[in-house]
């Protein structure tokens, strides 16, 4: 009897690819750290910071890591999803955002080489 060489099963894998950025806008906002029930947040109260409004052409995958807007190498990491394609990223250290630095989207901790450029250089929004 001949032997079957078999057919290797392909594993279903999570897809961690980020969607394409349709648009990105910035605005100045006030940031008040969320009120915790059991302790005080370590996030700073910011009278003025930069919020990035990112629209994508699809949902950002849900995983352990978080999507991050990088301005140069400065992460803008506090992110909230308004819906499947609209996200707000709030800078916790706005003073580190460098005028003219490239803006990219990536995952937390991801090296710069793997991030996606969104085609914009950072410009501090006018208040």
């Amino acid at each position, binding site marked *: 009897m001949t032997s079957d060489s078999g057919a290797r099963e392909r*594993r279903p894998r999570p897809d961690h690819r980020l969607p394409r950025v349709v648009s990105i806008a910035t605005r100045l906002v006030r940031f008040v750290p969320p009120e915790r029930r059991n302790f005080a947040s370590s996030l700073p109260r910011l009278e003025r910071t930069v919020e990035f409004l990112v629209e994508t052409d699809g949902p950002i995958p*849900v995983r*352990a890591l978080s999507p991050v807007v990088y301005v140069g190498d400065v992460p803008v990491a506090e992110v909230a999803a308004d819906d499947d394609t609209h996200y707000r990223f709030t800078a916790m250290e706005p003073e580190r955002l460098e005028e003219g630095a490239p803006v990219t989207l990536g995952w937390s*901790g991801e090296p710069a080489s793997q991030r996606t450029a969104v085609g914009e250089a950072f410009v501090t929004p006018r208040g």
Partner: protein
Amino acid sequence: MDAKVVELEELDLGHDRELLSTPWLAGPLYQCATAVTGWGFVPHADLEVEVDGSVVAGGPGGFPEPQGARVELPSPLVAGQAVRVRQLWDGLASAWSPTLVVRDHTEDYPAGPPRPQINPAPVWTCGSRTGVGNLLGGADVWITADGAEVGRVNGCSQQQGVNVNSFYALGQRVRAHAELCADPAPPSVEYEVAAGPSPLTTPTFDPVYDGAEQVRIGSIANGARVTVSRGGASLGTYRCWGGALLVGVAPVSAGETFSATQELCTDDPGSPPGTTTVQPCSALPAPGVGPVQAGDASITVTSSVPGAIIRVYRNLAQVGMGTAPVVPLTQALVAGDTVHVTQSLTSCPARLALELTVACVDPPVAGDPSALDLFPVGHLEYADGPVRGSVYYPAVDDGEGQPFHERLAALGRVPIVVMAHGNHSPADPSYLGYDYFQASVAKTGMIAVSVDCNALNGAGGGVGNIEDRADLVIDSIKHFQALDATPGNVFTGRIDFDRLGLMGHSRGGDAVVTIPDVIGSIGVSIRAVLALAPTNFRYWYGIPTITPRGYAFSTILPAADGDVVDNNGAQFYDVSEAAPYTSQVYVHSANHNFFNRTWAFDDGVTPVFARATHERVLDVYGSALFRSMLLGDGSAAYLLGTVKPAGVPTEAIDLAYRVEHANTVDHHDDGNGIGVNSLGLPTSANGGAFADEYPFDQVGGAFNSSFFGLTVGMVLEAEEEGTFRSEVGEVDLSEAQVWLRVAEVGGASVASSGVSFELGLEDVHGTTGWISSASVGGVPRPFERPGQSKTMLSTLRFDPGCIGRRSGLDRRRIAAIHLKFTSERDRAIAFDDLQLVPA
């Protein structure tokens, strides 16, 4: 373990014809036991059991395998009695075994005997015999079907076969029961009798050799009846609890044939016959043995022919003669000894020997911290608005909403472990994914809560999301504080919040590291935190990483994690403070998701272990952490590398650990340069060795991009024989070990060969003795991740006692520690945390 098979002809072994190893008693022994079980005797030896100096029982032991020899006693044991055993064989009498003192079982099991386990499970229609495990030796065990007793053995072994009459009927509900000193154990898990496999598998035979007196038949269905024939003549029908059957026979000869069939119900077709032909004596292999390290006074046999006599030789002189699974030796072994182990049958002498070199450190494989099974497990869902989840707890019986185990409760409050899942699709009930671990924790006598954090799951993220999770977990802790304080529920007055453990997976791991820093004074004491494949959002965003301190910390890092690709838990380990210990479990071929039963996809960046193996890893190492810190038993040994757990691929696991009471020679974090160690004493590199300190981190200035921790360490490169020397003043290492975290430096790919070094101890007289890394387990090889292997350091323990007396080294006056590169050139080894640790 370094072992090979050699021909006995090549050896000049010195036989000791007067040597007969001592058998041993399965312990502990408990009051009221009506029988004891002897092991390790030679087949057909007579056993004598002595109680308080008088031989009270004995007789032919038969074969030691598979269950030892059960010796009935003339009267039940009484606490305080001293019991021992010896064997008489071929005109020889062994020494008496070590004495076991009879204990009252309530000293070890104050809430009653452990619950019996039907093992193997399940039970099939027409099953005729059932195995029961997790028993106290000498207890009475019985089985019920639909509440009626169908089989019993009084004075049982720790694993006991019980014949069933009448045979099981489809749909019956079967449980095992046990009792010692009129103290009943909780009944076993209940199994419903199901139709057995059809057709039944053909029985298999282990190889049978000329002269054998036992034949092992495998692939047996649980409770099947096995008919065995020899040369076409029936030897009889044997009931079997399932798995394998070991049948005693008159000595066999090469070329003889055996066959076996099995059946469950008589009106169903039996299996096809399995057959074997007896092989000649010349085919008898060498036995297999477990790890052997300096100081061992016994050999653990891992594979041998049934009924074989095992002989052990140390440096060619016989030091043991007994049988599997453990052969006591007449002398303790010393590092570097050459040991030979043989097996022989009555008329078939050994031709081959297993030859091995005794390692300095090679921990035994023994036990399983997740196996402790004392109580049935109840479970509940809880919800108070957004505060929700599931809870498992020790109960009077298994099932939803069962009352709390009353007898345990009467002994006092019990510890609680709170678990938090990570970020995942909110459509999946992630909090249910650790039910197996919750049940495992609960059956040991703790409460295990899994918090539903789904409201925080989704595409959002950041440190704020981690704080949200920490906040919600604290809400659940407070919820249980309220339940504990409120009359009339399962948890009223039951929970000891002074013994709180936390386990978190992924972002949940980040959250449980955060909680001790923020929880404040709410009336809880966190004793242990387990971060499973955690994120570390603070690190990513340039905020100082939280230092795990004030509790035992452990992190499990899946090497093939395709989500938390940086294995950020290593950062927590690096900055953690040992209180009383801290540990890191780096698991090769493990992914991020398979620890949670509701996370379906395999995210692994390489092929990974099966989901069940992932669950075993969490179960075993998590149980070790929480048992050691919340129940106060010795399970920390599994996290501190002195014992390896059974049933886990430990060859694929690298452990790192530190303990509280250690004298650090160099942790390289003090910024004083490579020329001075953490004791403020000089170091030097010579003979072509090049050493420097580097951040072991994903930052500029790192030695290369393979380091994913959060510390500073040393990288040593050397020409052959190049040595790094670190002064320690003058220290006494006669009762201490040298611990050192070490790794082969990774790169874009994994080199074809590993690296090695020797650790040297130099005394005040200038004498230096050496221990090779190979003799303490070796430098672990990097896990091969596509594109980037990681330099993940693990701890090696060097016992100065392994340096032979002939070296002339004065271990009480050590002045310096050397690291001598013994690998080929152009390789690098990473070191950190050089410590002197009291033995």
